[in-house]
């Protein structure tokens, strides 16, 4: 059984339909990239998965259970967590408090302490700043914190919405290294990225969304060489 199985997903905003019957699966242990032009429906898909918007049709089965209609916090409890576009860290709270809040759904569990230590291992620059207000972090550190906070809920599937946006080139490289490390430690990842080339390089499998529908999918390596994909998203190197 696939970890996540999405069938004929539909998302509407008022009269505008953003996702028009999108079906895909995410297998356990994989990084799946979701790419597509602006307005193709990528963020809408993630929002529907995490319960931030309610899908208007189709089904989302996560570990065999239907997610549509569930409250966002229940979806986090079920093991699916989203890192929002634009980070949305809690600026006045300290780095540590942000991370601890990430474990809200499992508060009281003794394993939280160990996970916290693991986050500081994964993001060493956060360890040095654990008492600092999160708003004082640089853009790259804020992105790391947002990911770390999401991981603190001990998810099975992590949704990343444009993690490289607004990051300096040096940080982009280290971000993708981190994403691979998180995956190796056992978390499956659904990655939405405008930086399609990087996304295809780190992912196992890729989905290309166009006008709310699946346009193409396949192993990432083969899409990297696909003429249509190069023309539409990658441009000339």
């Amino acid at each position: 059984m696939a970890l996540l199985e999405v069938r004929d997903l539909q998302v509407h905003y008022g009269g505008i339909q953003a996702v028009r019957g999108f079906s895909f699966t995410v297998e356990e242990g994989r990084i799946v990239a979701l790419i597509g032009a602006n307005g193709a429906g990528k963020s809408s898909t993630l929002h529907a998965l995490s319960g931030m918007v309610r899908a208007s049709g189709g089904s989302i089965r996560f570990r065999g259970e239907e997610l549509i209609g569930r409250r966002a916090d229940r979806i986090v409890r079920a093991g699916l967590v989203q890192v929002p576009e634009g980070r949305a860290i809690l600026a006045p709270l300290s780095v540590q408090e942000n991370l601890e809040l990430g474990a809200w759904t499992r508060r009281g569990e003794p394993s939280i302490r160990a996970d916290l230590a693991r986050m500081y291992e994964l993001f060493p620059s956060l360890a040095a700043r654990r008492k600092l207000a999160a708003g004082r972090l640089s853009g790259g550190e804020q992105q790391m914190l947002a990911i770390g906070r999401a991981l603190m809920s001990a998810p099975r599937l992590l949704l990343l919405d444009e993690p490289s946006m607004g990051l300096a080139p040096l940080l982009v490289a280290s971000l993708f290294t981190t994403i691979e490390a998180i995956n190796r430690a056992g978390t499956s990842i659904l990655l939405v990225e405008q930086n399609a080339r990087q996304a295809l390089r780190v992912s196992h499998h890729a989905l290309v969304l166009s006008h709310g529908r699946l346009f193409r999918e396949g192993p990432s390596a083969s899409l990297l060489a696909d003429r249509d994909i190069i023309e539409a998203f990658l441009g000339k190197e």
Partner: protein
Amino acid sequence: MIRRNFPRLLIPWFIGAAIVCLDVVLVVRNPGDLDRLLINAILALSAFVTLHARLLSLANAGFMAIGAYTSAILAVKAGLPMALAIPAAVIACGLVALVIGLPVLRLTDVYLAICTLGFGEVVRILIVLLPGLTGGATGANLSTGFPYEVMHQAQTWMILLLLILLAYLFWTMSSSRTGRAFRALRENPRAASTLGINIVAYRNLAFLMSAMIAGAAGAFYAHSVGSLDNGDFRFTRAVDILSFAVLGGSGQWFGPLLGAGLLTALPILLRDVVGASIGFLRGFAQLPNILSGLAILLVIIFMPGGLAAAFGPASGRASGHRRSKRTAASAPVPGHPAFPGLASRGSNAGGPTLVLDGVTRSFGGLEALSRVSFDVEEGRIYGLIGPNGSGKTTLVNLVSGLDAPSAGRILWQGREIQRHPAHLVARAGIGRTYQNVQLFAEMSVRDNIHVGHHAHIRTDLLSTWLRLPREAREEKASREESMALLERLGLADIAGQSAGTLSYGDQRRVEIARALALRPRLLLLDEPAAGMNEVETARLGQLVLELKAAGLTLIVVEHHMDLIMEVCDQIVVLNFGRKIAQGSPAEVTRDPQVLEAYLGKD
């Protein structure tokens, strides 16, 4: 489709008709309530003006009191005819508003609310402390001092006439340059200021209008009721006035009228109904108030924009839903280099047009920018790069006038601008976009561009109200130029959509279009390609080059190095607030310090 939408379209008209029916019943039962209804409607408009400009003011009851007492005193003690006493009272309110507006309007939100609430109480205390003039705490002296004939001469038709006049003024204003400026101010004051809108002036204008309208309502109230009591102008009155506007909706001018119509009639009618009903209900004296409170609560929960929101957005006519499938076809039209509104001056690269001289900005003890100096030559593209937090956006904020340097000078075309407010910097020809897109989300794409024309449209409020031909001419020109600009940027097919519903990349392009509507000489782009894929980024690069060809000077903050390398003539590199390198793209990418701090060595 039409069939299914039909009942929905009728809802607002049904609400409006229901309120009119309630008011008709109210007036038929007791004709004396008509004056109260009309005065409440005028008061609702006074609250609307401030709310519409995003000012949470509770001063209306205070201004109403000033208007009431001033006109009464002038009529009774000075023997002025009503036709002079009422205008004099309105002018008095205006003067008071101008004086207290200066310090008070620096505050916003809840601070402004508390401060204006205090103002209302001060007015009431002054009334109590001046018994010789006002009748003091009891108000009794006052009413005996007023001969009934003098006071009770405001006829209902006069109040109605005033209400109709005000409705006309608001109706014409709503689609004018001033109306757009208020809407822009309400949605995003920062963005409005960098489009050349003087937000301080507009806030003061709104406060002034609100005060004068409340004053007029007060003056008519005094002359209609015939006696005054300071208790009429308590805090609860201020809250009532505000709830007319909130319940009715502060997005459109007729909203407050609906609110006043409902909230005037409901408690009175409920009281009558409850009073006439079976015995045990009569025991609950507060029942009518509880029920009308419940009605307010229900409207606010189910119609957060107020009753008027059911009628659709303010410029609703154009909210087109025809979003045709757009593919790469929305690329700028090639071989069409002219940008509407931008006088093509060709690329006349000559001397420095912007000079930064030792610019420093510290926040607390931390220097976000530290003695940064460089010259920007006309007609060239400058890249501004550096790690996150190195001061790039701070620099853009300083140049665009949103922030002022702690030390150093910024010269634009030879003149120091570092102390200029943002709207003057914009009018001097410096436009910008934002790292986190700052569109007027609830306005259509077309109206966003319209606001960009603010500085170039000269129609003032008076010509709007008098319907001078100049306004029609200017509005038509602005509409045409907006559409031409949108077409030029490949955005014409989304012109009618509200900006907030667009995808991130489209929002960025609309923001560039809006900045171009200002017809700038220098354009500051803060991470224009964030959220764009490589193909979209390449298209943006093409646009930037075309803007340069049209004679524009650009400063581009970006992390997409492909874009920077392709378009920039010069690159300035910041790290920890200091300039660590400047030069051509080739020079900068070889610089070891830049490699170390920013690019990485691979």
